[in-house]
């Protein structure tokens, strides 16, 4: 998939263009992406998908095996043309997941580091550093050592240090994952502002779909070294392309084949067993089409006994296998054909006296069940 402000023929483009392969042992990352100036792309994927490899290659800490990496008008990596700009000469700022602040330098000297490396005098670099620290409300910490900082403070200092290097591309590796819930909320809010103010392209790797949705303009899902989905956070959440993404955004997703398409409704035979009647999301399907069927947990109804004579087209028996308390609802995991996640209120949980092993019936209106073409099929 090739997206963004990218011109493969090498005409002048702005932003970041990456189209290449990186191998690590028996794992190969094969990705094409583009990020425009001012845009924030979130890269999301399971562990081992290749997200870190991608970041390291963009930063110059790893090389492409083939392909091309371009930032603005500069070619940073092109094995075919024997071009490779090492990390220290790339205008790329990287905020590491474990901050990697220099323990022997004060906060101020950490932030001033890039300036010093560029040849600024100690006083000039420190003054610039103080400016950045004030901008991120870290002025009071200027004289401290990294060991004396809390997680949230260290994260902000790491960001200040990367921004003070005046990079043309900003990379963030799971910037909030090491923080506790409250700090994460604060820092995330600040990060939204800083990313908005950042003029160049920014790429953010994360596990957290909420983080991706709040911070990014676009989402790129990587699994097994390949791009499996690319779109706005809303698009990805509404029509996830894989089970991984569906699980991440809390949607029930079932791959299957169309058995019959009659008028507005489509009957889909699910790969895992069972059948669902859905509304086709955009176009009409033909029998035999490979599709994905998505059912939001909140659209499913739980019944203590078999429901009789109802409008819902989808009814099937199931067994409760787990309960999870979310902020304002209970997510019930049920096993059946097919299995599902169902959201109910805590009151309903009590009233139905649900526990692990309880037999229930599920129903879902066809109007709440969407199906769309399976991008993998």
């Amino acid at each position, binding site marked *: 998939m090739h997206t963004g402000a990218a011109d493969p023929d090498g005409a002048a483009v702005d932003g970041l263009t990456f189209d290449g392969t990186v191998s690590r042992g028996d794992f190969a990352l094969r990705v094409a992406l583009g990020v425009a100036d001012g845009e924030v792309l979130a890269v999301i994927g399971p562990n081992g998908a290749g997200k870190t490899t991608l970041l390291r290659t963009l*930063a*110059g*800490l790893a090389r492409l095996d083939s392909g091309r990496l371009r930032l603005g008008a500069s070619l940073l990596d092109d094995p075919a043309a024997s071009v490779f700009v*090492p*990390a*220290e*000469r*790339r205008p*790329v*700022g*990287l905020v*590491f997941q*474990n901050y*990697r602040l*220099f*323990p*022997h330098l004060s906060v101020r000297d950490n932030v001033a*580091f*890039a300036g*010093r*490396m*560029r040849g600024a005098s100690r006083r000039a670099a420190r003054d610039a550093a103080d400016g950045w620290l004030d901008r991120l409300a870290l002025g009071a910490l200027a004289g401290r050592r990294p060991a004396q900082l809390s997680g949230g403070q260290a994260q902000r200092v790491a960001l200040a*240090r*990367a921004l003070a*290097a005046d990079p043309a591309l900003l990379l963030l590796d799971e910037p909030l994952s090491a923080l506790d819930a409250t700090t994460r909320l604060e820092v995330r809010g600040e990060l939204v502002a800083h990313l908005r103010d950042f003029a160049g392209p920014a790429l953010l790797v994360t596990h957290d779909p909420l983080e991706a949705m709040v911070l990014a303009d676009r989402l790129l899902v990587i699994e097994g070294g390949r791009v499996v989905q690319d779109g706005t956070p809303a698009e990805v959440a509404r029509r996830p392309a894989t089970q991984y993404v569906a699980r991440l955004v809390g949607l029930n997703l079932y791959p299957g084949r169309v058995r019959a398409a009659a008028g507005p409704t489509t009957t889909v035979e699910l790969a895992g067993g069972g059948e669902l009647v859905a509304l086709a999301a955009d176009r009409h399907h033909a029998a035999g089409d490979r599709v994905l069927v998505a059912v939001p947990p909140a659209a499913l109804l739980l019944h203590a006994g078999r429901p009789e004579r109802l409008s819902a087209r989808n009814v099937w028996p199931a067994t409760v296998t787990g309960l999870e308390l979310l902020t304002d609802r209970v997510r019930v995991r049920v096993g059946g054909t097919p299995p599902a996640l169902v959201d109910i209120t805590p009151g309903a949980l009590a009233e139905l006296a649900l526990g692990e092993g309880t037999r229930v019936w599920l129903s879902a209106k066809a109007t709440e069940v969407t199906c769309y073409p399976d991008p993998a099929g």
Partner: protein
Amino acid sequence: MLLAVPAAVGFAFLLLPLLALLIRAPWRGLGELLSGSAGLTALRLSLECATAATVLSVLFGVPLAWLLARVRLPGIGLLRAVVLLPLVLPPVVGGLALLLALGRNGVFGRFGYSAFGYSLPFTTAGVVVAETFVAMPFLVITVEGAIRSADRELEEAAATLGASRFRTFSRVTLPLIMPSLLAGAVLCWARALGEFGATITFAGNFPGTTQTMPLAVYNALESDPQPAVALSLVLLLVAVVVLAALRDRWLRPGSAL
């Protein structure tokens, strides 16, 4: 119980000679013996030469340690073997080899001699060279180990901030390995101070110019053992001070040199 007997014998074997030294030491006349001109001269010469040898070892040894730790070349194992050789080679053999290399008719020394009329053997500078030869490997090994285990992650961070390899080393790696470097330097200094075989072979035994403390002890033994014992006590004291200085690294159970 069965292990206790050989363990006790081993310990006694190491302890008894030190005890004998302390028991037979001329505690009453120590001050006079040490301040005798031969003793003081030897002491001052030893301190100066050991310090000079350590400085040279740091100047050349640290870059060498970095090379061994970070550069991946075919044959780097051979390079390390050569660096480690003086650790295992009998010091006398080291001294002889230095003579053959740097002496008046030596493989390399004869150029210096024919050009400047100067040769290293039997000079104070020669003492420094001999001590550096045997002591530098200690520094190299200690620092190489520290660089190897130094946090690559911080070096990567420095690279993303624009630091060249050299500046990464000088601004990030070096400050972080400083404790190991200092420990290596102390070890190097102690080894240089105690060197006998290479010094006496390459630099000779001339009081005032090349007679360091171990040589003075050896010398004194032939005529009058008392000053020898006094000087030995000083060397024992230096050894104890070195151990105390590096106790956190060496005296913890499980710590390796």
